[in-house]
């Protein structure tokens, strides 16, 4: 079990891209068993940043093995996240296409697992982002001007097979806008009475801290959770990944 938990940790970003256009930060707190959260951020080429977050259902070795498999599928060298361009090179695969592939590869009957995912490709030169969100807790955009908006789902949880189509959506990030991805380990964190930290408290905290830097926002979230639960350890993995568009 410990080996499997160690493997899960090695799947987390060892080093985030250092970009002049985009700032990135993450926080991960594992539960006491092996969870199913993974996330990553990497440059596909000089202007396209990929960020994703996955939450495989369940805990334990079977969930851990699926996370390893999904991580390999989404690796930049896998050939699954790029498509050929007309000049003999490659360009980012559309998020919808990536999710279609995952849906075909991971029907629930194959591993007895479902998973949620947010997968986004951002042009760091323009701030334009194309994303697909499949059954995942709503990513939150924190605009510099103070507004906050959760991004709705564009597709079903992975595992349904071909029952429902996947779509993708666009988002134009302005300078100073932040995007926060997280797993349900944040909003479904429970105190001793079994009450959830919840969307409302989380979104209020994000609004209150929207002018803080990413690192401060992620730490403030974890601190607020621990205050709420009086330090009760999380029953699920807690994952947060933030990015801020800071331009060149």
């Amino acid at each position: 079990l410990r080996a499997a938990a160690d493997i899960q940790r090695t799947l987390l970003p060892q080093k985030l891209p250092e970009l002049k256009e985009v700032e990135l930060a993450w926080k991960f707190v594992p539960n006491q068993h092996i969870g199913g959260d993974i996330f990553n951020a990497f440059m596909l080429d000089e202007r396209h940043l990929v960020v994703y977050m996955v939450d495989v259902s369940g805990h334990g070795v079977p969930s851990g093995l699926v996370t390893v498999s999904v991580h390999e599928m989404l690796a930049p060298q896998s050939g699954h996240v790029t498509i050929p361009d007309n000049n003999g090179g490659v360009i980012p695969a559309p998020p919808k296409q990536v999710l279609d592939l995952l849906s075909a590869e991971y029907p629930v009957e194959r591993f007895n697992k479902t998973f949620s995912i947010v997968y986004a490709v951002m042009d760091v030169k323009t701030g334009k982002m194309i994303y697909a969100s499949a059954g995942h807790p709503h990513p939150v955009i924190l605009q510099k001007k103070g507004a906050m908006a959760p991004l709705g789902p564009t597709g079903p949880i992975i595992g349904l097979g071909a029952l429902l189509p996947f779509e993708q959506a666009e988002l134009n990030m302005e300078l100073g806008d932040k995007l926060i991805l997280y797993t349900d380990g944040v909003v479904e964190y429970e105190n001793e009475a079994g009450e959830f930290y919840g969307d409302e408290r989380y979104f209020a905290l994000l609004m209150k801290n929207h002018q803080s830097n990413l690192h401060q926002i992620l730490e403030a979230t974890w601190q607020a959770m621990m205050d709420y639960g009086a330090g009760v350890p999380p029953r699920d993995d807690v994952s947060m990944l933030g990015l801020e568009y800071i331009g060149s």
Partner: protein
Amino acid sequence: MEIQEREIGGIKVVKPELVRLDAHASPEFMEDINRVIGAGGARLVLDMSAMNFMDSSGLTCIVTVYKEVTQAMGGAMVVSGLQKPLASLFRLTKLDQAIKCYATAEEGAAALTG
């Protein structure tokens, strides 16, 4: 886990007496639900009105049962009685677009009869 079984107009209605369907409860849920689903061609209302929490493992159970009934067994299945937290989860995961949801078991059974 106790499962209530009844019939409405020839449609099987199964109601798990379970408040929380999570990673801990999922194995027993699957074992028990598979026992009551019955043979191929089943038309089934899964009455979930006793449940007020479901995590991703629970959701996986529902997807598995739905695919077993509708694809492997060639039957039909709807759910009924989703409490607010479950209704939100079904919306978030778009499961509500794949599996028809009704307020009551009677409405679900009527939909399967028609």
